[in-house]
């Protein structure tokens, strides 16, 4: 199964991500976000704790990604994996695994709610469509 696809959008970065469960979906949205905006990394591995609470699943995805972008910018890191300790429709706790940021293609300014959609397909695969302001 592919992790994500880049969708057509005239000015911003829009992706459709997939996962066999919600954890994998959230991970793949994160990977799609960084790869879509061409964030490049160094070798050394870094771990960072993340804890997010929101009112529902779609807000959780936006808040989770916004938190990651905050960590990315203030620590100059980029992440490629997550060890989930807890994941519900309203809460995430886990460890982000990443590397030092080398450079980026274009900076992600924000994670938007525009056209945001999270759903489970008939075949059980979870999918998310999300637009980033760049």
């Amino acid at each position, binding site marked *: 199964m592919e992790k994500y696809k880049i969708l057509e959008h005239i000015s911003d970065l829009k992706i459709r991500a997939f996962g066999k469960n919600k954890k994998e979906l959230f991970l793949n949205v994160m990977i799609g976000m960084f790869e879509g905006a061409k964030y490049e990394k160094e070798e050394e591995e870094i771990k960072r704790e993340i804890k997010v609470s929101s009112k529902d699943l779609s*807000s959780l995805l936006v808040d989770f990604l916004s938190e990651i972008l905050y960590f990315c910018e203030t620590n100059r890191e980029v992440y490629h994996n997550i060890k989930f300790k807890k994941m519900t429709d309203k809460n995430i706790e886990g460890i982000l695994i990443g590397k030092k940021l080398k450079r980026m293609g274009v900076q992600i300014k924000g994670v938007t709610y525009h056209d945001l959609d999270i759903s489970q397909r008939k075949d059980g695969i979870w999918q998310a469509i999300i637009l980033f302001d760049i």
Partner: protein
Amino acid sequence: MMISKKDFIKINNWLWEIPKSFREDMKVPVRIYISEKMLQETEDEALIQLVNTTTMPGMVKYAIGMPDIHSGYGPPIGGVGAMKYPEGVISPGFVGYDENCGCRLLLSDYSEKEIKPYLNELATEIQKEVPSGLGKGRKVQLSIGQINKILEGGVPKLVEQGYGEKEDIENCEENGKMPDADTSCVSERAKNRGRDQVGTLGSGNHFIEIQKVDEIFDERVAKIFGLFKDQVVVMIHTGSRGLGHQNCTDYLRIVIPVYPKYGIKLPDKELACVPFDSSEGQRFFRAMSAACNYAWSNRHMITHYTRKAWKYVLGERADLKLLYDVAHNIAKIEEHEVGGQKMKLIVHRKGATRAFPPGHPEIPEKYKEVGQPVLIPGSMGTASYICVGTEQSKEAWYTVNHGAGRTMSRHAAMRAIRGEEVVRRLKEKGILIKCRSMRGIAEEAPLAYKNVDEVVEVVHKAGLSKKVAKLVPLAVIKGE
């Protein structure tokens, strides 16, 4: 839902209306300043986004589209909406994540011929002085206390501290400082992100360009603006960087859960808004004002570093005067005439620029006779324009577009052309390009944008602003 030609009412050759009857939830009609040809080329999604914005409570008269309209998130880019004050709404998504993204133009005393031998050195020095702030920020990290001073004091505070000149204050929209800024409304996270980014350029379509005055359309206004043919000028395009992005993110998180409690129904969550006079509305306005002050301070400090580079190459006497600085992502309280009566409005401009007419009290004394200078940057390597505000744009709340507007997605642009090819074509035209990598260059290729000459022609003919001068690039300095 699709929009077809029959849904539009033609008001005149440059103004089109989508009436309220188009969709049940519209509270006011849509009006777009555009030519018939460009209207046909506009994506449906951008038009639907403008229709969506008409559902925001308290919108006065119309949701307005500018000729560079294209789809974004929530309201389209090139969208304008004025709400009743103080009970109408204010919306973080109608300002955008890059709060007070904007443009400024610096004027030199030199002609192209005089600068030519130094051009490469100038571009190199400017690039050295002004980092992108992405991979790494500036070497100096400001304290939270220093950030607070910038958020509250804006450009005047920096001038007081010895950066720049007194004229830099009056030649900036709002005198470089929104008075309602309140640092206690801005999160620590936002402030943290701002600590090493004052005087940094960012990425995407942000740039510094060394340009020349290629053509003058209005000699009288050009003279008052201090422009002459072949004059070398410097344009700076950037915004509030990570601080503004975080501020918008923070307030969407606050506003989205609460707007239904105010009885607001919206077709897109990204339009999330609250009454201006609510506690959340007040806090957002004060925080956004602070982020706007940060953005003006950012452009002001980039000016300081650009002047430093300029003097380093050309000598101490070489100077760069600020013509004007205008925001193009902002919400402000302004006084306008509605139905013959003066009233205060909450004006949102997203990818749109304020353009006050002659005699307006909020423009500098020296420009009062002719109107506010308006800056319309083109895409990378194409022409930019200096225009002047007119009385005819009253119906558009004295607003003009903010650039050329995209016509092709970044992804499509990358498929259409390689970064190296874009650079080669610019070089062929004699334009120097300084970028740290080829990444992101193809996405900003001129072929991904509308033709700026055509866009400005619509602006001029629709009376949104009058053309004063055309600028063409000599050197482009990209953030990343």
